[in-house]
């Protein structure tokens, strides 16, 4: 059975505005958005650009907006009339591909790492709360930034929930020596209006698990 979906297309080099293109794609047993995108690229339109990776929900590279909601293309099922767009608020390289380079640069800028450890060749004794593991499982799909109404990539690509997850993780790490709560404040965390729009595809409760760690005074 064929169904119709619309995809937002945009090439900043040649297009004044994004546009919507419609495609008829086959739909079978639990067909996903990623399968539909792959089909379009292979059989209908060689110019379609989209991100994809592991196919099984582990890498976060295929996140797109499906009918206005962030979803992993590899797990979202397709429906007739579906509209697929890049994650809102993210810089588009082309079509559904977003530019992630700023996020690597952000790791440097905000020193998102522990300091050099003196290496004895033996692992250290380290104790972290259970929450650390939940934060460490973030697949970096950027859905949280894309759904935060206060997030503005052009103003500061780092001032959003995604970087706060990393700061909270470091705050819980006994080897961390930088005041991550102050960094969170400097990024504008106190502007958070508690609207709870920030959405985590992996089900992390950003308000409780991330802001909760970063809100304290450090004592």
């Amino acid at each position: 059975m064929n169904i119709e979906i619309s995809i937002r297309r945009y090439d900043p080099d040649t297009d004044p505005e994004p546009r919507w293109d419609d495609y008829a794609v086959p739909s079978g047993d639990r067909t996903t958005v990623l399968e539909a995108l792959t089909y379009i690229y292979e059989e209908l339109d060689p110019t379609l650009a989209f991100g994809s990776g592991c196919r099984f929900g582990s890498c976060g590279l295929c996140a797109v907006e499906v009918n206005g909601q962030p979803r992993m293309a590899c797990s979202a099922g397709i429906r007739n009339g579906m509209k697929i767009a890049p994650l809102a608020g993210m810089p588009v390289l082309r079509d559904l591909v977003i530019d992630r380079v700023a996020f690597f640069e952000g790791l440097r800028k905000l020193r998102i790492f522990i300091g050099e450890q003196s290496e004895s060749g033996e692992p250290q004794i380290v104790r972290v709360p259970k929450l650390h593991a939940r934060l460490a499982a973030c697949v970096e799909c950027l859905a949280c930034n894309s759904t935060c109404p206060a997030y503005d990539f052009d103003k500061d690509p780092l001032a959003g929930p995604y970087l706060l997850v990393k700061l909270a993780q470091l705050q819980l790490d006994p080897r961390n020596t930088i005041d991550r709560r102050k960094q969170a404040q400097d990024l504008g965390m106190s502007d958070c209006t508690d609207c709870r729009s920030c959405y985590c595809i992996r089900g992390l409760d950003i308000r409780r698990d991330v802001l909760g760690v970063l809100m304290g005074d450090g004592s």
Partner: protein
Amino acid sequence: MTHVTRSDVLVIGSGGAGVMAAVEAANAGASVTIISKEPLGYGDTRISLGVMSTSPDTSSGDSEEQFAEDMIRGGEGLNDPKLVRTLVNEALEATATFEAFGHIFDRDHDGRLKRGLVPPGGHRASRTIGSPGAGVSMGHTMRSAAARADLDVLEQTVCSELLVQDGEVVGATALRMPSGEPLALLAKSTVIAAGGAGSLYYPHTDCMPSVTGDSYGLALGAGAELVDMEQVQYLPFGITHPPALLGAPCGEPVVAGPFGRLLNNKGEAVLENIMPMTRAQVARAIVEEIGRGGATEHGGLLLDLRPNLESPQGEFFVKALRKAGAPILSVVRRAYGRKAADLEEPWDVLPTAHYNMGGIKTDEWCRSSVPTLYACGQAQGGVMGGNRLGSTSLTEIFVFGKRAGRTAAREASGRQHADQKLAREPLEKLRALCGSPGTHRPIHLKRALQRLMWERVGPLREATGLEAALAEIEAIEEQARDLQISEIRRCNTEVADAVELPHMLATARAIAVSALARTESRGAHVRSDFPERDDAGPVSNMIVRMRDGECKLRRAVTSE
């Protein structure tokens, strides 16, 4: 004008091996450029379960000798013992180094490393340590470590070929995907750390699509030797349906538990006592039964875990699986439903391409057969022999990543950069791809090659199929000279496909030639026309290199 970079060390690939090599080289004082097809750190390491072998726990009677023996027994004698000993001896140091990057493996209540309870198939004792955030947490660590070090990082950059001058590698050419701009990367030492070739078997693979045999294609193009390329690991348990989940990993032998069994389409048990077996042994049993007509309507066999629910010993295992195997159970739930994820219904399973044991032949300091070219991680061959034991690849990437980075940095001093003119022709080739007016779309050739590899050079092989595969590979190579590519500069996936295709073809040829030459079944290489292992003569490694456009093979008796 072409962009040119000059560094002491060029690292190609940014999974665990590449990042470790780059950071070590930078720490040794070298200027380092690291290129990555995806964002940095987004390789197979990042989608793994994050379970790594560390040093043996001597307090429980395990030893380094026993660990090395397990690897060589599992690898059916094809491993290079020097490389195995290096991995085992340096496993603890590599663990500590990766934790000093920021990672935290599983801990006990006192904050000490906590080894897993149940060893993966083929290990006689547990040496595994898990990552509480699975592989993706290792990805975070790798990105942070790369950010902390002084590296020139080029993300979304795909390497087309190595530059060779007087038999030495002097850098590479690459394409920046976001802009479509070609690059010359001149270097005094070049480290290949671009992973394996799981994508050659798409969709029958659980690897990242970026893993297209670039490591092997680049090395072959520069004249380097590869060893035992026929040894491709198929994880025995992969999902068969729905199509979106075909190839998804649902376990290695340990997942069968003490009482799990494999059933065919008549409900007959075709394999029991699976847990201590190697991945190669279990994958073989599955494909042989399928060859006898035992497959289900979805093309797999049924992994029946129910007997584990019925005994106290099994109960212990079920608990461990729920804890350590959560990502596996979540894939099973999506494919086969809640009852299957609760082990109350059997899973339809088919082997899925997971890892290449074969690879670039190196010494224990990661030097390839070509001066100035180094390899580490899955790119490298000889460590795992004919079968890799579960959890050892994450050890391999760090142990050999460290060594490759250090050696490449040390040996770079005293070398000169080559003239950038050398890059002129490969750069012209790259420029010509965009808008190429020919006949064949690169993605269609890729898909044809992938189907061919699964059908004829997959988990079950025989001479006529391999010969037909070699002829077909040659036909695709011919078609690849006449490509049709759209004219877009930015993020043109077709251009990326066209850059990957020659690497895939070269790797496919190396695998098929080695598989045809190994007239026995050993490790992950199973020949239906030579079902027995040849234990009469000495054990040999299959070594290939490209010469005058031909894939030349020689046999070398294994050392020890």
